């Protein structure tokens, strides 16, 4: 990826992002060299198991990694429209956060200030970035709520988050995020806590706004169904690294990493027979306090080779930006194809 060449196409480029948390137990290497890019107007999904570093990546992009515990390692770069945001000054940050880039968190109730009226939480954003007056911002907040499909927004702006249902709270979060027409939206598992029926509504709103406003979206989730619904491109994360990335079709129909294989296979499908043994990934992800030397997936990989335990595989490029980091793609490795069963055997 040549950053100059892609300057106008790529709204965001993340290069060798490494983030650690310093805890009593030691240094948690949450993100260990993540690189990806995002095109304008594109929806990129980051999938992976719990604790693999998805949220930390999102927070890093949003500029929310805070000392003294959190640390973005030197050498990491996050370029937004070609500028490394990690070198931003106070004012640049202010414009970037909320104005250029917005985030939606998983737990909307926790992410909304319980003691502030919903309208004000939206208006606050407008006042910071659009230099609106109080009343103007308040009117605009009503509009935002209307746009995300909340009935009677005039009344609702006066209410507090706890008076909203889960789905509506997430809509409020979306309203806050979209308030200042960001160019980049990060959704950190926005629907995981919601029911499927509500999840559909929320995804529709996000997709709708994305299309209308040409926003680039990073959708973080571990639900492959959601990914299939929304994403054009997918990055699969495992243990603080991206192990495979490519277009949605590449990942779903032509995955190249054993972890992606296993991930896709372990999802039960409605067309499966009753009580079949599901494909599952044995064991548990590695401890990020002491990550293994070699491929992090090697401990659970049915295709594990001795080399996997010794060294980190290099990234192999396939066509059209499809990449995977696995020793299986090394010329010396035996040829293995993705097993052809899906979601069971």
């Amino acid at each position: 990826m040549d950053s100059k060449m892609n300057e106008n196409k790529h709204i965001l480029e993340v290069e060798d992002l490494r983030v650690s948390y310093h805890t009593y137990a030691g240094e948690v290497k949450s993100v260990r060299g993540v690189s990806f890019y995002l095109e304008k107007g594109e929806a990129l999904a980051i999938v992976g198991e719990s604790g693999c570093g998805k949220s930390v990546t999102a927070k890093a992009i949003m500029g929310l990694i805070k000392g003294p515990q959190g640390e973005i390692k030197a050498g990491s770069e996050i370029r937004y429209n070609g500028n490394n945001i990690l070198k931003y000054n106070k004012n640049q940050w202010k414009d970037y956060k909320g104005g250029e880039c917005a985030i939606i968190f998983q737990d909307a109730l926790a992410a909304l200030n319980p003691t502030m009226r919903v309208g004000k939480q939206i208006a606050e954003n407008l006042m910071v970035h659009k230099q609106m007056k109080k009343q103007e911002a308040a009117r605009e907040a009503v509009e935002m709520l209307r746009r995300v499909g909340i009935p009677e927004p005039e009344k609702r702006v006066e209410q507090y988050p706890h008076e909203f249902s889960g789905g509506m709270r997430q809509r409020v979060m979306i309203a806050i995020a979209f308030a200042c027409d960001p160019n980049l939206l990060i959704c950190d598992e926005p629907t995981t806590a919601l029911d499927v029926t509500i999840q559909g509504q929320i995804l529709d709103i996000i997709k709708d706004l994305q299309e209308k406003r040409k926003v680039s979206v990073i959708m973080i989730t571990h639900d492959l169904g959601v990914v299939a619904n929304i994403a054009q491109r997918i990055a699969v994360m495992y243990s603080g690294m991206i192990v495979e990335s490519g277009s949605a079709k590449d990942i779903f129909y032509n995955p190249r990493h054993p972890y992606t294989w296993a991930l896709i296979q372990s999802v039960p499908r409605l067309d499966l027979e009753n009580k079949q043994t599901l494909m599952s990934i044995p064991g548990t992800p590695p401890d990020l306090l002491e990550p293994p030397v070699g491929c992090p997936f090697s401990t659970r990989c049915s295709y594990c080779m001795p080399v996997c335990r010794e060294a980190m595989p290099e990234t192999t490029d396939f066509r059209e930006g499809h990449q995977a980091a696995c020793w299986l793609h090394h010329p010396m490795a035996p040829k293995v194809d993705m097993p052809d069963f899906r979601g069971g055997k």
Partner: protein
Amino acid sequence: MGKYLIRRLAEMILTLFLIATATFFLLEAVPGDPLTQRAEKLAPAVKDNLYKRYGLDKPMMERYVITMKGIATGNFGESFVYAGQTVQGLIHDRLPVSARLGIQQVLLGITVGLLLGILAAMKRGTLADYLVIVLSVLMISVPHLIFGLLLQKIFAGDLKWFPTIGWPAGKDLWFGGWEYTVLPTLTGCFSYIAAYARLLKTSMLDVIGQDYVLTAESKGLSKGAIIRKHILRNSFIPVITQLPMSIAMCITGSFFIESIFSIPGIGQYYVTAVNNQDLSILMGETVILAGMYIVVLFITDLLYVAVDPRISLTGKNS
């Protein structure tokens, strides 16, 4: 709401009744009686008269009933020891003095305490944080009396910035004669500063870790705005919880302050009354203080609602 108020009022009255009862029997359990000293030199007949006059010749239960009846009608009777003094007079003369002292202490203490708390929370792990910790422990562990005397010696004695003793009265009772109130207020506010600084620090650190602070940050709000608009209000719940305790603290603390600075408040009087087993005055003061405590408790509940919309007065809250 009306129903709620009525229920609260009923509860308050019940609590006050229980408090009065507890106080009465506690005092009964103390050996001797308030007249022991006064009657010591009297002839038996006169002594009987004296006891009769204060109703102390009656059996305990009868006196209990009489006392309770008196309280119900707001008549606590006259002091056993300071003849002629009544609780009504006390409320009129002394309560405002203590109230001003208490209010000034609490306001100043809470304000400074909160500022220090914010400082410590925002600068966690830095020298400022440790300074606040050390300072607050120091403020708690050095007794009021010593603080008061030191302040008096330095600021009134050596520097002559403030009067040594005294307290405003008359038209200055509430607003005026500030120079008299500076040292007593300072002496008393230290413990509040310490308590509130620690409290706010802890609860702010709690709030800082919450997701909605991240949300606020992701909106591009400045640090100051985040603290003001998002962190503070949410950190106030534990602070509010502490308020009634402060009222209780106020009374114990004010004894020393009042005695050092010759302030005619209820604190000094209270300790004297306890030592004298001055039942009527004690009963009156206790009921007043407990009443104040309960009212503050009620205000606290209102404050909770004001600060945290999730809490409702009437319904069940989390």
